Every structure is written in C-alpha cells, then in structure tokens.
C-alpha cells in the first residue's frame, strides 16, 4: 500500500512535469517576446514643452529609468519586504507561498491570498492585461521564469522599480518620489520610502492625497514587515511610524497643473495625434511667459480671496466663486498667461477657454464701433437716456434698464459708454441692427454662437474670456487682428522643424473709428466704471470695459494697453449671483477690474510706457456732455456744464443732428 502511494506520488510528479512541459509547448506561441535588456522599451523619448523664456514647462510621456544606485536603499528594502522578501532566493516563483495561495483559493472560498513575486508582477505589468484568469496567471509565471533566466536579480529589480505604478499617474519610483514628495528617489527617508512601497498594492485606495490616514496605516504595515524580515530594527520602525511625511503641495499628481498646458496639449493632440505628442519626443516652444503667468495666478488668487471676504464666504464652504484670466500679446496674438480657475487641482475645467458666460456691457465696444462705422455717429453724437421699449415681432417688447435704474437725459455717446448706459445702447442697436454688432464681434475674432437679437449688444450671448481678450486686442492695435495662438514652433527630437508660426496681420477695423472707440474706452478706466484701476495705482495709458451680466451672475473686466490685452472673469460655475454681505450685487468694476489692475501693473512693470498712436485726421474737441457742442459756442449758459474731450475724424462736425 505504501509502495503504491509512493509510486503514485512519483507518477503524479512525473505527470506534472510532463504536463508542465506540454503546457509550455502549447501556450508558448501566445507568450510575448522579451526585450533585451528589459529596460530598453521601458524608456520612451520625452516630449517637452518650453516657455517663451526657454524654461521647460512640462515633460510628456516621460518614462525615465533611473539606476538602482539612484534610489534610496530604504525604498528598495521596503519594497522587497512588503512585496517579495525572498526575491533573491527564488527563480520567479515562491513555491511555498504559491501552494498556500492555491490552498486558500481552493478551500477557503471568498479569501484571496496573493503570491506574486516581484518578477511575476514585472511580467504582468509589462506584458499582460489586468484580467484575472488562470491562463493569464500561468503565462505570467512562465514569462517570469524566462525573465529570471535571462536577467540578473539586479536588472529585474531595476526594471521593476522603474515601471511600477504608484497611482496619481506616477509610474516608476523617481516620478512617484517627485509627485508625492517633490524630491528625487535617492532622497527618500525611511518613512517616505515605506509609504511609497505600500502604494502599489492598491494605488487608488492608498492615495495619500485622498486617504492620508489609510496610507499611513499601510506604511506602518510595511515598516513592521521590514522589521520582521530584518531590514530594520524595531526602534527604527517605531520611530518611522511616529513621523507623518509631508506631501508635496505644489503638485498633487502628475497632471499638468496648468490650464494653459491642458489647452496646449489638447491643441497639439488634435493636430498631430496622441502618439506624436506623448511618444514622439517633440519639442514645443509655447508662448507662455512664466513671469506673467505667475503674476496672473497670484492676482486671480488674491482677487478671489477678496471676493470671498466681500461675500462672506469662508474656507470651509465648498462652493466658492471662480475666476479666469487670459493675457494676449496684442502685437502677435501670442497667449502670454492663462488662468482657468482658482485651483487647478480642485477643478481642471478651464474657464478661460471653455466656459462661455454673458459678457454684459463688455460687448458694447462692438456696438459703438458698428454705430460709428455704419451710421456715421461719433463720440460727440448726442442721444437720450430714457425709458426704451423696442418692439420685437412675435414676442413682448424689449425694455432694457440701466444698472442705476435711473435716467439721465441727453448725453454724448462717449459719456454713454463711460457710464455704461443700457438705454442708449439699446437705441443704438435698434438703429444698427443686431447683425451689425455681431459682424463687428466676428471680425474681431469672437467665434462663439451669437444670437441675432437686439440684446446681443448688451452682452447676452455667451463668450469666453479667451475670445474677449483676443477680440479686444483688435481695438488695442486700432484694427489689426492677430489670431490668438499657444505655441510658436514644434521640432522633432533632432531639432528639425515640424511647424512654425508666422505672425500675419489682418486689418479688420477702420483705424480712425477704432481709435475713437479706444479713446472712449480709455475714459472708462479714467473716470467710468473701471476707475478703480486708477485708484489702485495703474497709471499707464489703457482702455477697457467692465461687464456685469443680469442678476450679477458674471463680473468681467476686459482691457488693454497698446501691447497687452487681458480679460478677467469672475463668477460661480453654477448660476448664482455675486452679492456682498449687504445684499448688494457685485459688478465687474468691483471685483474683476481690481484683479486686472493688479495683474497688469505687475506684468508691465519693466516695459516702457506707450500710448495708443493717434491716427491721421483725428482731432480732439472739448464738448458739453449734454449738448455735444463746444461749451463756449452752444449758446446755453450754465455754470455747471460738464465737459468732455472727444476724438473726431476731420470730416466729423460737432452739434450735428445725428441720433436725435
């Protein structure tokens, strides 16, 4: 009987060997080829994006392999202790652990015991999907055998630590150390190394940015295991358990961390495909100016903090107002800075490019240009601020109101823009027609759908801050349009040019008429709804327009100097009014204009001061705000006359009867 049992065992072992060989022959053709050396295809060339000053902004598709001697020994010990402490003893399979795992799987339903060695994990990560089947497990084991045969333990460990996933998009220990601790893998201390070594088991569940305590518990398990396997003393383990590693604040994962880069990458992928962008090793020379970008981020952050205080919103509240800023070089269309929200890591939605909001009065410059060009009106044309009712076929009359809810009677158009008088804007659009306004917006580069309704002149069609900054830059150049763009040049890995941008000018507005509108917009900053900008000490020649949508949902300021056009938007993502603690609506002049001024002051600090060039045939006249006539010649005696300087073309006369 005993002999029978022994024979049986021997036969079983022989059959096992034979069937093992049969299985190898059978599935051999389905097994992947192994690269030699293993790290050859782990490394892929990196694509780089550079800022305008040559600084590297981001490296895409980077799979940088670092040698073992550039990795903290604590991390190597920790990963060996927790994943495979017999790594140096086996040949790809830990047989005792495998038998134990098999026993648990077969006889203890519901319980799962992992037995994968580091080599098997490497095989799985490199060549197989995460589908859990016995066949995949078998293939993984066979590939592990081959890896062990063809490579030294050092080479296997090197490949493993460079391709392992730590979550948050970090692959490889160097990337993980940078993402989670902002340092190189060599500088990791015991506590940090143990925390990272605990992540591969379940990168999502142990993500320290989301589940810090859970990650610490896992780290403690790693430290205990390190002590049990003899890598560290009990004292060292206990000391490390006491520490709480600080996570790298600036970058909570491997996302770009930048709204500008997101937009740029999306552009590149649309043009060249994901493969070229992430694996092509290209060099992209972007338009971003890091100095301006930094100022933009600070200005938005501080501006929104002030808005929070104004509204009585504290840090504990989850729904807080958002903001966006885009700055464009007027001479080329190059985007110099872009902020798409108050915190990229909390919301990646790029409000600068992808959010369309009502610009309110920010659309009036297009209306005034249309009225000047098509109707022959000029800044001294007089119109009346009065209740207006515009008949619209098939629906009720349109009755726009002023923000002040009062009417001021006669005034010149320059004054109407400075005071952002809606009733006069409504009368103008009634005369020009909404299509004339949308036509001007279109030639200035607004691409969003615009409704063919009168109220389009008061900014009821939604647009993005990116479009507004770009469209206003056409006024800054007195009518020359440069299409906005995010990169200058793309080169391949060898420096050969794939794409190059040339700055082409398109004259789209009449210079003198554009200047008249710009001159009016200058006064918006000097004495109108944007005068807070002057109070804040920004004293360069600049023009702009505030915008506040109905019910105070959106507050804008878009303005420009001759060289830089910047649009600032603030508001909530969802429809919600901006009201202060006294229940008063917050306008663009109160919240967006200060952000604009703060940014522009810092952005242009080192640039020489320039004014807008005055075109030929433009003359300046001082007129009575009410009559539009020369105050000395209008024949009316009034000591309290308010006068204003207006720009007129040589053929335009004062005291005409236009618009009356």
């Amino acid at each position: 009987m005993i002999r029978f049992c022994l024979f049986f065992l021997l036969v079983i072992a022989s059959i096992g060997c034979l069937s093992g060989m049969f299985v190898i022959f059978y599935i051999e053709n389905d097994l992947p080829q192994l690269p030699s050396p293993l790290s050859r295809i782990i490394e892929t060339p990196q694509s780089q994006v550079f800022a305008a000053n040559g600084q590297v902004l981001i490296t895409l598709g980077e799979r940088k392999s670092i040698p073992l001697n550039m990795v903290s020994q604590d991390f190597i010990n920790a990963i060996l202790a927790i994943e495979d402490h017999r790594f140096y003893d086996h040949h790809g399979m830990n047989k005792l652990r495998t038998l134990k795992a098999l026993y648990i799987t077969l006889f203890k339903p519901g319980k799962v015991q992992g037995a994968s060695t580091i080599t098997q994990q490497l095989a799985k990560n490199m060549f197989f999907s995460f589908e859990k089947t016995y066949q995949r497990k078998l293939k993984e084991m066979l590939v592990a055998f081959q890896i062990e045969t063809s490579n030294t333990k050092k080479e296997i460990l090197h490949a493993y630590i460079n391709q392992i996933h730590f979550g948050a998009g970090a692959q490889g220990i160097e990337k993980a150390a940078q993402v989670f601790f902002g340092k190189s893998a060599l500088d990791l201390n015991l506590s940090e190394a143990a925390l990272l070594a605990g992540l591969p088991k379940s990168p999502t569940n142990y993500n320290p940015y989301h589940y810090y305590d859970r990650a610490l518990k896992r780290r403690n398990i790693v430290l205990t295991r390190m002590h049990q396997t003899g890598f560290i003393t009990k004292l060292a383990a206990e000391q490390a358990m006491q520490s709480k590693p600080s996570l790298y604040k600036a970058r909570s994962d491997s996302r770009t961390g930048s709204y500008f880069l997101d937009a740029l990458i999306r552009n590149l992928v649309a043009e060249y495909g994901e493969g070229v962008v992430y694996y092509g090793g290209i060099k992209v020379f972007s338009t971003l100016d890091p100095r301006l970008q930094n100022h933009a981020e600070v200005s938005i952050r501080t501006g929104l903090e002030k808005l929070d205080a104004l509204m009585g919103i504290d840090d504990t509240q989850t729904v807080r107002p958002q903001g966006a800023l885009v700055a464009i070089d007027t001479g080329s269309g190059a985007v110099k800075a872009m902020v798409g929200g108050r915190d990229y890591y909390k919301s990646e939605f790029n409000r600068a490019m992808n959010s369309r909001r009502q610009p309110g009065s920010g659309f009036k410059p297009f209306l005034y240009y249309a009225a000047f060009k098509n109707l022959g009106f000029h800044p001294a044309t007089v119109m009346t601020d009065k209740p207006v009712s515009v008949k619209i076929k098939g629906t009720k009359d349109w009755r726009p109101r002023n923000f002040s809810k009062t009417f001021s009677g006669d005034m010149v158009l320059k004054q109407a823009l400075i005071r952002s008088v809606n009733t006069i804007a409504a009368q103008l659009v009634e005369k020009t027609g909404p299509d004339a306004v949308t036509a001007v917006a279109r030639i200035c580069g607004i691409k969003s759908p615009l409704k063919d309704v009168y109220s389009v002149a008061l900014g009821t069609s939604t647009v993005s801050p990116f479009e507004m900054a770009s469209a206003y830059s056409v006024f800054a150049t007195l009518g020359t349009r440069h299409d906005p763009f995010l990169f200058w040049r793309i080169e391949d890995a060898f420096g050969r040019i794939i794409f190059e941008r040339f700055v082409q000018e398109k004259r789209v507005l009449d210079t003198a008429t554009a200047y008249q509108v710009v001159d009016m917009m200058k006064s918006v900053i000097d004495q109108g709804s944007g005068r807070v900008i002057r109070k804040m000490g920004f004293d360069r020649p600049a023009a702009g327009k505030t915008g506040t949508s109905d019910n105070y949902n959106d507050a804008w300021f878009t303005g420009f100097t001759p060289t830089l056009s910047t649009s600032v938007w603030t508001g909530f993502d969802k429809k919600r009014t901006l009201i202060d603690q006294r229940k008063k609506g917050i306008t663009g002049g109160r919240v967006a204009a200060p952000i604009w001024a703060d940014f522009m002051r810092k952005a242009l600090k080192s640039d020489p001061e320039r004014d807008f060039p005055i075109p030929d045939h433009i003359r300046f006249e001082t007129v009575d705000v009410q009559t539009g006539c020369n105050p000395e010649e209008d024949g009316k005696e009034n000591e309290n006359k308010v006068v204003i300087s207006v720009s007129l073309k040589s053929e335009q006369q004062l005291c005409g009867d236009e618009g009356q």
Partner: protein
Amino acid sequence: MAQQWYEPFNFTEWLKRAFSFLNIAVLIITAMFVFSEFRFDWFEKMAGSYLASTNELRPQIGPIWEKGKQTSNAHQYLNAIISKKEKTQKNVRKAASFSDLASSILPGEWVTLESREFKALYLSLQRAAALKVIEPAQLVWLLNNDTLDRIFCEGTQKGINIYFIDDQNRVIKKIELANADISSLETGVKPIDGHLSDMPEFQGRIYRANDFFKALFTLPKDIIPDLISHPEVLLRQDGKITHVGIWNESKNGYIRLGFELETNGVTQVIFVNGREWAVWQLSLNLKGNSN
C-alpha cells in the same frame, strides 16, 4: 509465476514491507525530486531556458510593446513629415522658374527659400512679369533689410504665397501668386476671350479707346510711361483696341487696365498694369471729359 498477495499478519511484517528496499528507493527518489525542485528550481530554470531559446520567434505583444510601437509610429509619422519637407525643399532648390516652384509645393506644404534663390527666380522673369510679383525697388529694400530673416513659401489651393519674415517671425511682406498669374509670368501676357462689359470689376470705368487715349495724351509726358509701362505687350497684338477699362481696385501700387481688342470678329481682352497714381490722374481726366 505470480505470487499470491496476502495481508501482513503482524506489525513486524507491516514494517518489513513498508521499509523494503524498493519503497525506500522510491521515497528517496520522490523526496530528491521534490527537494531538488525546491532547492534548485530546476523546473523554472529549464522552462525559462527553453523560453529564452524561443524568444525571438514569439510575437511582440503586451502593453509595453504597444507603447514601444506608439513611439515607433510617432517617429515614423514625424519622419514622413520631415522627409516630405526635405523632398519639397530639394525640388524647390532645383526650381528654375516660379512655375517650377509652384509645381514643387503642394497645398499645405511649405519651404524656406534662401534670398539668393528668390533673387534668381525673380531675375529670370521678364521685367513686365517681374513687376507683377514685386516692384524691384521694394525687393531691393526687403533683401537689404537687416530684419529680414528668411523667405517662406507656402502652397495653397490657388497657387503659392511667398512671405518675407523678420527675426520676430512677423510677416513683413506677403506675395500671393495664383496659378494663372504664375503661368502668365512665364508665358508672357496673353489676351483672353470676352468683353470688358462682362467683367464686373470694370463696371462704370469702361471708355472708348479714342476717349481713353485722348485723355492719356493730355497728361504730362513723363506720366505716360508709368501708365503703360510695357506698350510692347499691346503692340504685339494684331487686333484693334476698341475699349479700355480701369479695374476697381489697386494691388501692390498698380491698377489693372483692360484693353478690349477686336481681332477678325473675335473680341478679346488683354491686361496691363499701370501705376496707381498715374491711373488716378488719368481717371480724373477721363471724368472731366465725360462731364
């Protein structure tokens, strides 16, 4: 002869049978088999060695190879762009005329021209044709301008665009050459069938030939060469000029004049460029006559 198996009748017999030489041998072999596997991993090593020997015959599959393929595809794509551009550049270098240049660059393709290359192409044109491309004085100014960095040529559906670029990547001058213009540059100016009155660009500015020439000769003598700078184009024609039209817009400082010819009952139109300011002078004279 077969032995009859019988059950051991006592414990000693059991032990004797259990520890027989054969049993112990089988046990030792089995133990050695299992122990050696645990100790020396010979099965894993054999399997690993065998698989290593067949490695090259197996497919390159799996996520890591896919990524490698993506890299290789990306490089192939980029290399295709570069080699296409280099090929175009090579053809452009060989171009002896603007026609060659235009036929070398397909729509969407672009190349950089050296100043001397552009100069050579320009100088190969007859003076009248060269004027259509760019005024010589302006070209001299552009080529001597310190800010000129390179000349960039782009193929379009209609023909080619030539950009003069400064060191800030700004376009200093853009020349648009339609395919029809390019062929006329090479072949010289040829009349086309049709009437001036059918061409909307001449509406309201068509004059009888006599009136046109009368007005022309009232101009100061030094203006006339600027108005019809290449009279040989007209003199080469066999037909009789019946009407002259003035185009409604200027291009590069020139305004197109259309001369309607009657040749053996066939009406044709030939175009000649006149300097903008000279044509305006003539227009004033023509208006004065018609008033």
